């Protein structure tokens, strides 16, 4: 099957500091890739670069998504093309309600696909259905985006937004951090319900725990801006047991 995302020799910096130092990664539809690695290895930078955050500068390499040059696209264009980033720290937006935010987002996606906007009734029905995926109370819809949400509620809101937008490639940046077991289970089951043969996930995590719920096809270990190991799902257990040091030694 064709490659959905192809990253070749990707280098990215903040100011003078090079954070990604030659990433190669190919993802096909239907796959779940986990990216693990110690703090500061570049995991969040990779997700930010893929979503188009402009605090990072790509200095070398390429990213091709569905045959297009992803790096040339604005963040909203990437979203229209089916890319979704689940933020590690979801942004609070006082004064913009969750419902107005999602209505603007969903109808813009529809417009880009040549579809009519949803009627108020259709939209509310869709919203209720997707909120149920992550067991979110309907009172969240009238509240400001992420304003006053607990850590777990913010992460559930990310998965809810993903369910609304039905991306082709979802990148979940440490969606499990700060979650208790119940919230983790809710978030993971939301992700599992959205898995289809034609979409793919990149799950960035520190811990093996999440991978008990979202089973990856491949695990990559990122260290100092490079992928130093790629293996099957059993690698997570080995990392849980032995940490990253043995992999780092192996690669050096």
């Amino acid at each position: 099957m064709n490659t959905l995302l192809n990253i070749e020799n990707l280098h990215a910096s903040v100011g003078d500091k090079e954070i990604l130092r030659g990433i190669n990664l190919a993802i096909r539809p239907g796959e779940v890739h986990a990216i693990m690695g110690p703090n500061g290895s570049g995991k969040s930078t990779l997700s930010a670069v893929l979503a188009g955050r402009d605090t990072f500068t790509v200095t070398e390499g390429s990213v091709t998504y569905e045959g297009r040059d992803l790096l040339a696209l604005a963040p909203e264009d990437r979203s229209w093309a089916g890319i979704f980033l689940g933020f590690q720290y979801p942004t609070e937006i006082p004064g913009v309600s969750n419902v107005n935010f999602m209505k603007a987002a969903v109808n813009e996606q529809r417009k880009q696909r040549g579809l009519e906007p949803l009627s108020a009734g259709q939209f509310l029905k869709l919203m209720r259905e997707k909120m149920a995926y992550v067991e979110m109370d309907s009172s969240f819809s009238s509240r400001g985006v992420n304003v006053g949400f607990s850590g777990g509620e913010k992460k559930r809101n990310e998965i809810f937004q993903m369910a609304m937008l039905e991306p082709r490639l979802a990148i979940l940046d440490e969606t499990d951090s700060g979650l208790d077991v119940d919230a983790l289970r809710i978030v993971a089951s939301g992700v599992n319900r959205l898995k289809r043969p034609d979409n793919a996930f990149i799950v960035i995590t520190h811990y093996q725990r999440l991978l008990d719920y979202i089973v990856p096809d491949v695990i990559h270990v990122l260290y100092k801006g490079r992928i130093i190991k790629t293996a099957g799902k059993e690698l997570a257990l080995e990392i849980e047991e032995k940490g990253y040091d043995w992999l780092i030694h192996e690669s050096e």
Partner: protein
Amino acid sequence: MKANKQEITLCPGESRELVVVQDQPGLAEQEAEWKITLPEGASLNMVFLSLQGTVHNRIDVSLEGPQADCRLSGLYLASGDERMDYDILLTHHVPGCRSEQLFKGLLTGRSVTHFDGLIRVVPDAQKTEAYQANHNLLLSDDARAHTRPQLEIYADDVKCSHGATVGRLNPEELFYLRSRGIPLTEARMLQQLAFVGEVLERISSQEQRERLQTRVEERLRSAF
């Protein structure tokens, strides 16, 4: 040009809401002055919306009877070469009154705004509560917002605060909105509407609020 001058005196115990809309284009200065007096137990909720033009508003409020309550809010949208000034003097003459002010400005083009707000609490006016906030968002490099919130307090048992900010649209919010497929101009519009919403919410009639919200959005879409 002669200033348009209004005197507003409430009756004791009366509650009133007033909404002032300034929506005349042009750079000729439109001066307006309000002299407001609140006797015992009177309560005023007044909202100013300066949507376009060059305006100079002078507002003088006297709280003259105990338990008087004044809420002043304002929104100014300044674009092009417009200039918008607010001079506010709010005096607590007697004990036990409350006042609250919230003024917000959105500026673009080469517009200039001045917010000059003084809260005065006379020596006898104990148990006063007085709050004032002025927040400005600059949407262009050449716009200038000046703000001068001031407190003059001569009583010692009071709760007073004031604050002022001049800032820009939050880039983190912008990226979050765009990452969900909301295009740049629309994302900026959502941020601007969120900013002005806090003032518009203070209009209690739903019909009037929605009508003015629509008008504010029209102004933002055409000039900002």
